[in-house]
């Protein structure tokens, strides 16, 4: 990764990228920034594998008849699409790449508290990924990413075991990452970096880590029991020998609903940073945004039953889960309102990360509001397990998390690699992604209310028009994802050399060179101001590029 070009000085200053080029220095690195790059590469791989399966699914759904692939193949496609993108992209995505890179830098530390554990996390992640990819290559798995018993435990004859082991293993990567973040944020803040001076990105990662620590072990034990059930027929989830398949659903969603917040909270952290920088303002209601992250993390643990309103649980349990699900919507609403208010009287620059961030707010608002439809008991009975649900969680996961991930990657790309990307092309791609996304998933809300069930290989003819629209949108969206992939790789070698702080942002990560030295800072920084102190005289106005 040479940084020498015509515009750059003959030899770039020593930084974490050019300090050593050997394979060993990468694969045995304990530098959190290099580990972040390892995550970036592996996560991009999983993203495109999972995306490829989505493309095949959307092509199949172009016509009502199941004519492109067999039903069995289709079932494997949506299973592996969900599995790979949930467990190997969305959950580790922002924490693994941006969190790893930025958590120590934002709090003024030299590394995470346990650097070797951090590297171990990545290896565990890769091991879990290998098991899953083995299952994919050996013929796939067809249980749906939710592994509902007794189908997964007794009836499916695909590679459930290998995938189960993959998910089990990769869970420990999440646990160790969360543990590392919590300890780092508690013990390694630079002098003066009090809790209420922390960037909201850090608050979001702190809340995420709590969920990782408390939720992931439960899915681990659940998947372990499922594997034992398949191997030895121990009977815990098999109704034929006295087991209770509903218990599996409870245990599964006890993790997998909070896991949704593992996916969205870091995204919210990214959005707070980007909005503040490109509005050149402190985030409106900083402490409310910070506390709402914690509130989401805690409340998120008590709403899992809303996935089970029609599964036959007690109607009184359903009542409790319904009201709690409405409550967890409130902190998300608080965030949306505060971000919007941050724009008021800002000095707004519509750069690429900001375009993604503004798109995020709009799309996430729709994703959040449609969540109310699903929390509403009488209505959920109708739309549960239809495309309405599919549309809802893609608005949150793809429109939310993936857009925020792209916002973050563009925002910190100059910091990570010391290079700028072509701004015009990047803005164009952001608009393509936004349009493609909405065209893909908005029709699915209508399909869902019309009653089209999810996970259908063939469907009734009246659903076709909307499915064609959705597939058209997906092809635009796919293109929108390929463009950044191309110009970002291109920029590594040919991009304009980035300054220390190209967006004139506040935050400790912008006070060190781009890319940063291995130890992050020349001297341990001392913090004397609140976060996002954009109103102070620190900024040189000539340096501040508007538009």
């Amino acid at each position: 990764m040479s940084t020498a070009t015509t515009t750059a000085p003959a030899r770039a200053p020593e930084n974490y990228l050019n300090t050593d080029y050997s394979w060993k220095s990468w694969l045995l690195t304990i530098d959190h920034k290099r580990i972040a790059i390892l995550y970036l590469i592996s996560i991009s791989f999983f993203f495109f594998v999972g995306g490829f399966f989505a493309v095949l699914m959307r092509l199949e759904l172009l016509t009502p008849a199941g004519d492109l692939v067999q039903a069995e193949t289709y079932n494997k496609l949506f299973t592996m699409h969900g599995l790979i993108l949930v467990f190997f992209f969305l959950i580790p995505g922002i924490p693994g790449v941006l969190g790893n890179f930025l958590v120590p830098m934002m709090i003024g530390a030299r590394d995470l508290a346990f650097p070797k554990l951090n590297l171990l996390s990545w290896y565990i992640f890769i091991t879990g990924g290998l098991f899953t990819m083995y299952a994919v290559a050996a013929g796939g798995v067809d249980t749906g990413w939710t592994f509902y018993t007794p189908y997964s435990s007794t009836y499916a004859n695909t590679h459930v075991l290998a995938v189960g082991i993959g998910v089990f293993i990769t869970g420990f990567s999440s646990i160790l990452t969360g543990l590392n973040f919590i300890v780092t944020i508690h013990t390694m803040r630079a002098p003066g970096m009090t809790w209420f001076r922390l960037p909201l990105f850090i608050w979001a990662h702190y809340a995420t880590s709590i969920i990782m620590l408390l939720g992931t072990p439960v899915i681990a034990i659940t998947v372990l029991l499922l594997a034992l059930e398949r191997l030895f027929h121990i009977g815990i989830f098999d109704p034929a020998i006295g087991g209770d398949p509903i218990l599996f659903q409870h245990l599964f969603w006890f993790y997998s609903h909070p896991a949704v917040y593992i996916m969205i909270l870091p995204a919210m952290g990214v959005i707070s940073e980007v909005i503040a920088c490109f509005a050149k303002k402190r985030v409106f209601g900083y402490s409310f945004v910070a506390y709402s992250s914690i509130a989401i993390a805690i409340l998120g643990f008590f709403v899992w039953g809303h996935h089970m309103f029609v599964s036959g649980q007690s109607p009184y349990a359903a009542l409790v889960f319904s009201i709690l699900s409405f409550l967890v919507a409130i902190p998300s609403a608080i965030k949306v309102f505060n971000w919007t208010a941050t724009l008021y009287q800002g000095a707004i620059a519509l750069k690429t990360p900001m375009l993604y961030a503004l798109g995020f707010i709009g799309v996430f608002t729709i994703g959040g509001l449609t969540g109310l439809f699903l929390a509403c008991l009488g209505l959920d009975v109708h739309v549960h397990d239809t495309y309405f649900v599919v549309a809802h969680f893609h608005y949150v996961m793809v429109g939310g998390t993936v857009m925020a991930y792209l916002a973050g990657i563009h925002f910190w790309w100059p910091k990570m690699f010391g290079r700028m990307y072509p701004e015009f092309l990047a803005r164009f791609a952001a608009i393509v992604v936004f349009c493609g996304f909405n065209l893909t998933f908005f029709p699915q809300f209508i399909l869902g209310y019309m009653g089209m069930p999810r996970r259908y290989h063939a469907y009734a003819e009246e659903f076709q028009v909307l499915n064609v629209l959705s597939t058209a949108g997906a092809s635009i969206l796919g293109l929108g994802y390929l463009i950044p992939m191309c110009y970002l790789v291109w920029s590594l070698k040919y991009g304009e050399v980035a300054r220390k702080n190209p967006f004139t942002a506040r935050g400790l990560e912008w006070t060190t060179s781009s890319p940063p030295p291995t130890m992050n800072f020349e001297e341990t920084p001392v913090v004397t101001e609140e976060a996002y102190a954009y109103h102070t005289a620190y900024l040189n106005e000539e340096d501040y590029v508007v538009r």
Partner: protein
Amino acid sequence: MSASSTPARRAQPLHAAGLAHHFEDLPQQHEAARLGMWAFLITEVMFFGGLFTGYAVYRNLYPAAFRLASHHLDVALGTTNTAVLIGSSLTMALAIREAQIGRWKPQIGYLIATMLLGATFLGIKSIEYHHKWVDHLMPGPSFDVSVFGAEGPHARIFYSFYFVMTGLHAFHMVVGLGLMAWITRRAARGDFTPGHHTALEMTGLYWHFVDLVWIFLFPLLYLIGRHG
């Protein structure tokens, strides 16, 4: 490691022995290790918590089968094992105490005693497992449901929990013994001083946690319906 070889080292006072490159001072490092260990133990609680939840659900569903199946466990061996494990926690605590006051020899002695007691526990456990194997009480196709009459299928669920819970506990014991061997070697090398024995303390925390899990497992599995 690449990080330690970099010339971009910051100008700062010479690092104390045992201080990693990214910490400012030893107290910070110690605090990080302690917090990390506690956070890890919390995830362990959740890990076993999932199992305890499942256990509670089925015990509530099939109380008679659980009582019947539990009576086939060997209470004498279980009680012995409980005593052995509590003893090992005591020797572990004493080893840390010796490290705090800087006495080298008794420290090693207590560590070895802890390991021996841990190994005794695993030995007794394997005898119990062997009995269950002989009696066809291992969950799986070979499970002999006829032992429990009509409650057979549900007794099998009890034994599934028994083996998964005690098996995971035993796995934690094995990991603990490995840690203990490593810690003993370090202690023998004289790594631990009264002011600096974080690794020993952390291993102790872990060992006490594993002990505590057993304190819950023992009554839940062995003592159902034996009161009064």
